[in-house]
């Protein structure tokens, strides 16, 4: 089939047509081997899809890394596709244009692989909408031998069960290596003549970290809980363990990274200082699923920064990691980067640094390059609550850092909190307001001549969503009315200060997110129905409609509270128990109990508490 043609009248009628035309610097174009040749039989086309708009998808470092990993293979061409905004989708449906790749405008259904990165649960409906727009049968069971293999990865792949019926393959963990192995297996299989889909899936399921959902049967108890998830084929392992890249210095990095057409959310060179996090905040999925911590050395990072700035022309380099201040050689790195980048007239933007180690020195250094806003994440308003979630910072730490910042000329900060954390009471909510007021009081204590502008304090609250593979995976989510009441109360308490701005995340969205995050395969029918009824871009708060989703769930006899608001006993089989992130279930139970006691747990560099991630034989566990 020839490439899709995009009439000018369509591009002229939609918002931001540059989303749909490709042609970016460093986008990869390849010449396809002639049909019928042995090269063509051993060539794979991969469409990397991000189930959100271009500007969000192009900000994502995983996409850029894997684009590079796949395209450096001579036998593979990886192209991109993003979710068309609703105006474009309407136009495409009207004109009969199927979803296509940006690089060659090839319809997605002609690819060997259509891969999705699952960054947030509320993008699941968009995954199905993109498959539908591509003309690819939604359910794996409906796909034929000519259809692409639909594959997914990313943080939500650790529980992709709600969309498992639509995915042929799931890669667990960091995909740099497993994707290469998967492509090797695919190209070999295809060159040998291919065959029925199941034959390839069987081969794929033997690759560590590759999960084939259709090879597992889920049985349920009468009360709706999962009874078992068992392999139905001999090739499928009983448990699939995530993959990691042991040596980050050797991990592939896209120096000649894609340069987006449109301003994106993270429009800069990204440097990944390390993966994982030593901290173990109990609400944070990333803190557990990316274990163990592995660092990249400053020399490698500096070389990457300079080379990438030169190859992309980006005016800014940003540091990417879960908790940048935990990078052991941060001063050495920032010194080096400041020096290197000044020559290239490139800014270094420092991300939020941990409040207990923000140093005046580092801030001064940043002032030579670029100073960004300050963000802190105390997460909770009282020490009791912070101990429950294992956020090891105190109010004094925060105030000390802010004093340094205010004396250094900053006039504001952004403070992140969560509402609805396990064991939270109204007193904890009030603690958030009290903390914000203390910051205000601190500001007033700063000498007037240093306060050149009025204080500007953002207090931002998100709603706690219990996630798989965290110590809180058994916890009920706080109900929507209770979260609303807490948020309303906090707003009242913060009212009256012109310096404080209160922002909160939508409670309705957090509820559906909680349903999907710990959902099982029965939710697939709801997603399918939602997409049929036109649900799109549910992660955009102005597009989200909880009532519509509740109607759909109700129509299918599914109870959202069963997934979101129910306390699960420790011995219940969880929908993701056949998946393994290295951190053991027994460790998570122990952490859950420690949390209930209000006790904290030391981080990996204080004391290894034997979480299980040492099975990977590297990183912080062996420092």
């Amino acid at each position, binding site marked *: 089939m020839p490439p899709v043609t995009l009439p000018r009248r369509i591009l002229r009628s939609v918002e931001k047509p*540059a989303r749909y035309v490709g042609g970016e610097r460093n986008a990869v174009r390849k010449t396809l081997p002639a049909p019928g040749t042995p090269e063509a039989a051993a060539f794979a086309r991969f469409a990397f899809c991000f189930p959100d708009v271009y500007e969000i998808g192009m900000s994502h470092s995983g996409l850029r890394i894997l684009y590079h990993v796949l395209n450096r293979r001579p036998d593979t061409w990886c192209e991109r596709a993003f979710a068309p905004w609703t105006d474009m989708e309407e136009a495409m449906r009207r004109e009969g244009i199927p979803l296509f790749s940006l690089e060659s405008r090839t319809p997605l259904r002609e690819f060997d692989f259509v891969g999705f990165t699952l960054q947030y649960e509320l993008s699941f409906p968009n995954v199905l909408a993109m498959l539908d727009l591509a003309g690819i049968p939604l359910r794996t069971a409906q796909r034929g031998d000519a259809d692409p293999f639909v594959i997914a990865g990313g943080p939500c792949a650790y529980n992709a069960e709600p969309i498992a019926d639509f995915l042929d393959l799931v890669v667990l963990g960091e995909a740099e290596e497993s994707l290469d192995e998967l492509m090797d297996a695919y190209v070999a299989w295809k060159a040998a003549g291919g065959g029925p889909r199941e034959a390839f899936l069987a081969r794929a399921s033997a690759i560590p970290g590759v999960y084939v959902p259709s090879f597992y049967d889920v049985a349920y108890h009468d009360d709706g809980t999962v009874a078992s998830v068992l392999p139905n084929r001999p090739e499928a392992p009983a448990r699939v363990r995530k993959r990691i890249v042991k040596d980050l210095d050797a991990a592939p990095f896209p120096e000649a990274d894609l340069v987006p057409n449109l301003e994106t959310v993270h429009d800069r060179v990204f440097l990944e200082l390390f993966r994982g996090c030593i901290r173990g905040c109990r609400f944070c999925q990333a803190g557990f699923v990316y274990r163990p911590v592995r660092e990249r050395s400053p020399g490698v990072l500096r070389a990457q920064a300079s080379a990438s700035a030169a190859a992309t022309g980006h005016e800014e380099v940003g540091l990417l990691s879960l908790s940048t201040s935990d990078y052991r050689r941060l001063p050495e790195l920032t010194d080096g980067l400041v020096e290197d980048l000044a020559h290239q007239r490139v800014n270094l933007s420092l991300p939020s640094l941990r409040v207990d180690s923000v140093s005046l020195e580092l801030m001064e250094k940043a002032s030579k390059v670029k100073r960004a806003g300050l963000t802190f994440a105390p997460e909770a308003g009282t020490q009791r609550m912070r101990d429950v979630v294992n956020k090891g910072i105190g109010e004094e730490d925060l105030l000390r850092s802010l004093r340094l910042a205010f004396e250094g000329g900053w006039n504001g900060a952004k403070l992140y909190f969560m509402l609805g954390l396990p064991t939270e009471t109204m007193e904890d909510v009030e603690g958030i307001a009290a903390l914000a007021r203390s910051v205000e009081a601190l500001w007033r204590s700063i000498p007037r001549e240093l306060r050149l502008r009025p204080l*500007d304090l953002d207090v931002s609250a998100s709603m706690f969503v219990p996630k798989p593979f965290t110590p809180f995976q058994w916890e009920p989510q706080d109900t929507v009315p209770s979260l609303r009441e807490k948020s309303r109360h906090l707003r009242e308490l913060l009212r009256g200060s012109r310096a404080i701005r209160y922002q909160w995340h939508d409670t309705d969205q957090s509820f559906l997110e909680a349903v999907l995050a710990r959902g099982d395969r029965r939710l697939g029918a709801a997603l399918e129905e939602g997409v049929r009824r036109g649900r799109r871009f549910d992660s955009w708060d102005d597009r989200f409609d909880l009532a519509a989703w509740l109607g759909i769930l109700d129509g299918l006899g599914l109870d959202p509270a069963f997934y979101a608001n129910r306390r699960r006993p420790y011995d219940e089989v969880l929908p993701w128990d056949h998946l393994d992130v290295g951190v053991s279930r027994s460790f998570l139970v122990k952490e859950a109990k420690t949390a209930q006691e209000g006790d904290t747990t030391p981080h990996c560099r204080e004391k290894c508490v034997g979480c299980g991630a040492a099975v990977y034989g590297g990183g912080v566990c062996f420092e």
Partner: protein
Amino acid sequence: MSSDRTDGRDPKAPPAKAPHLRAPRPEGASNRPNAAPGRTMRIRFARTGPAAWLAHLDLMRTFERSLRRTGLPLAFTQGFSPHPVMTFALPLGVGVDTEADVADIALSEDVAPEDFAARLSAAFPEGLRVLSAHLAPEGGESLMAAVRAATYELSGPGVGTAAGRLPPEGPLVVEKKGKDGAKPVDVRPLLIALEVRSPDGVRVLVKAGSRENLRPDLFLQALSVHAGLPSEEAADAAIVRTALWTAGPDGALGILG
């Protein structure tokens, strides 16, 4: 798939970007560029293909990054976020190709124009190309203020025929859609010359620049409203800017750049 936050925060919230929080400026900071006098390169460039769909601000960002990729000695603005110093003669509409646009780029050291052109062309993304480069004359009118007129070639089924059917005189009112709704605009006084090239093509010379400017899509709309070109064809027509004009010393139009 590596280390993005998964703790339930809004995935779209930029973590370390709070534009309303201004950090202090170091002493002596200003936005004055370090351009040397007489070191401004004037280029003519073409754009087509995917690059034609960039809005003006995106095109400027694309230019900036392309310039940075060349590694040439550019003049930068001072301050926390140094940017190359560039001026464009006339913004290009989204979906408009050009064969004749002009931009000035300030340098900090001498560069041979041919080198400049070759290196910038090589650094551009798909669809952008430097046609020629020379040193801009010193002093005089700014590039933007110099623009008086532009030539566009418009093509598509029936576009030329429709242009031939336009009434020879009288107002040609169309609706210009803006932020606060549609406003009627008379295209006639902005139209300098019109040449039907084929049944499917027309070349128009129109007023352009910061004082008076006719957007080519409004002319296409006039063809649809006043000469029966189906509006779908008007929306689908190819638009290429083929020349930018300035006023010469005698007042006659001369090619800009």
